């Protein structure tokens, strides 16, 4: 039978406020374990939470960028469960009156635009981090807890089950991350856990309107993992149904090493959270005027920026998309174009070698050891033939490696392009002398022989000779 997947995503993003959502501890990532904690985030008796105004503003900003309706009245609730990452044994979250509802975002895939609806966006506090003293949680004898992350503000964004393939889910997460970065409410670093994603997935016969039994996937720590976990799970469910089995509604965890999803033991699940209104916090009444101010202050969003790149620089759609999915990349691109005036050159280098070098180091654009000014300087050298593209690649690698500027590297390593006839002529004459046979071939009309001779000159100059000049000087002598 031909099955179709139905996927909904639940995304958690940490808001980049300076202090936690209900206390004044820092939200800074890292830090010695258990040094960013206080009586409030530890839930010590007698302590009282107070809402961070900026967390509410950031959440409203994110919700507006996701086309959500902001609730006029909202409140916090206690979600009760026993797990050692929560020192209070409950998490302050939002249940029946979330901050925002009914939004959407648009994804573009294979030239088609699709709208994915967003059910709700709510605020909650993050939990602590567990380290298991064993190969896995079930094999651990004990666990260690660091509560530094406890109380960092989170927004949870729940989508409708509007996606039908792992690629669509990936595109949704890409777009959501881009929007949250553009609005500057979250860093969205999956490797630091400031963006996390769970997925609900089921399958049904293509064309059927009824939903199948879903499973919930957890523990996907990268965009790639999300896509691979969904692919695996859809395949697994398809096999179960094709063998006339039944899908069990359960939570499954993605095992990155084995490349499979595995059921979580039922003990790890808590179905009954016994939500009730948080008595230590008074409700929120959202000021409409303030909402409109925040809406008016929204920055240009990724799709608009992409359109602009296509219109202003005639970039291909794909290039424009890659360059605008990260706000930092889009800004890096803009500053390089401003310096060099050559959007196509900048785009090729940023999407090619620059991205490759970042990826191989597991870095994001904003962590790049090469600032845009230095990158632009290098590109200008290439554009004006001071160095060849090939040497340029080596210089960029060296810049990543050492953090030195292009000029210093080129000078220290003697990498300047040789465009000086006086230096080149003796080398060329030597090449012609040694390759008399090839010279003859060329004179007999074998055009290709010229390429060989150019190559020989490049080899002798370690790739530094200006190829156009070499061509001209060779032709003069043939």
């Amino acid at each position: 039978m031909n099955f179709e997947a139905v996927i909904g995503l639940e995304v958690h993003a940490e808001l980049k406020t300076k202090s936690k959502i209900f206390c004044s501890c820092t939200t800074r990532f890292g830090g010695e374990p258990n040094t960013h904690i206080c009586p409030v985030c530890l839930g010590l008796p007698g302590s009282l939470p107070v809402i961070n105004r900026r967390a509410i503003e950031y959440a409203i900003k994110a919700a507006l960028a996701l086309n959500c309706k902001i609730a006029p009245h909202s409140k916090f609730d206690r979600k009760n469960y026993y797990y050692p990452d929560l020192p209070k044994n409950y998490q302050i979250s939002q249940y029946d009156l979330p901050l925002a509802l009914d939004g959407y975002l648009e994804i573009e895939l294979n030239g088609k635009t699709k709208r994915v609806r967003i059910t709700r966006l709510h605020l909650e506090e993050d939990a602590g981090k567990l380290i298991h003293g064993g190969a896995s949680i079930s094999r651990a004898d004990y666990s260690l807890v660091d509560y530094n992350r406890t109380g960092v503000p989170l927004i949870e964004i729940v989508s409708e089950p509007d996606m039908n393939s792992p690629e669509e889910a990936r595109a949704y997460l890409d777009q959501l991350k881009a929007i949250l970065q553009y609005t500057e409410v979250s860093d969205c670093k999956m490797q630091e856990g400031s963006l996390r994603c769970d997925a609900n997935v089921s399958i049904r016969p293509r064309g059927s309107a009824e939903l199948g039994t879903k499973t919930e996937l957890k523990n996907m720590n990268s965009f790639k993992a999300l896509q691979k976990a969904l692919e695996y799970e859809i395949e697994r469910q398809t096999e179960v149904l094709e063998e006339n089995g039944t899908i069990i509604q359960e939570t499954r965890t993605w095992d990155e090493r084995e490349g499979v999803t595995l059921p979580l033991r039922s003990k790890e699940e808590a179905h009954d959270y016994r939500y009730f209104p948080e008595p230590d916090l008074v409700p929120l009444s959202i000021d409409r005027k303030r909402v409109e101010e925040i809406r008016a202050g929204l920055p240009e969003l990724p799709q608009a920026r992409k359109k602009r790149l296509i219109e202003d620089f005639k970039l291909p759609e794909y290039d424009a998309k890659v360059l605008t999915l990260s706000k930092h990349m889009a800004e890096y691109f803009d500053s390089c174009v401003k310096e060099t005036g050559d959007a196509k050159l900048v785009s090729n280098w940023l999407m090619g070698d620059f991205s490759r070098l970042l990826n191989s180091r597991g870095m994001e654009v904003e962590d790049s050891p090469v600032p845009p000014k230095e990158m632009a300087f290098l590109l200008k050298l290439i554009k004006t033939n001071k160095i060849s593209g090939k040497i340029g690649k080596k210089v960029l690698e060296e810049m990543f490696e050492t953090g030195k500027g292009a000029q210093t590297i080129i000078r220290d390593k003697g990498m300047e392009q040789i465009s000086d006839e006086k230096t080149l002529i003796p080398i060329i004459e030597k090449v012609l002398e040694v390759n008399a046979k090839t010279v003859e071939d060329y004179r007999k009309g074998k055009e290709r022989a010229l390429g060989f001779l150019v190559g020989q000159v490049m080899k002798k100059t370690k790739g530094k000779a200006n190829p156009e000049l070499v061509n001209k000087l060779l032709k003069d002598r043939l």
Partner: protein
Amino acid sequence: MSISRKDVEHVALLSRLEISEKEAGVYAKQLSEILSYMEKINELETSNIEPTAHVLPLNNVFREDKVEQSLAREEALKNTPDTEQGHVKVPKIV
């Protein structure tokens, strides 16, 4: 409103409370009585009244986004039965 022995056992498990079979019976009876008493409120006409989320007539109590000193780690972990390398050490979870 009646609370069964099973309901009591379920809630006790969720709250990690150990109760004897005898206690389960006692609590089932007491909780049923409490809830029946509260049912009285349902007799009131409330269709035109906004639900109350909080007993205080207050909204929007905020603090500014300012970082202040956290606890010193020794202080924060003082009541922790077991620690290791600055972490709270907890028994096997599952």
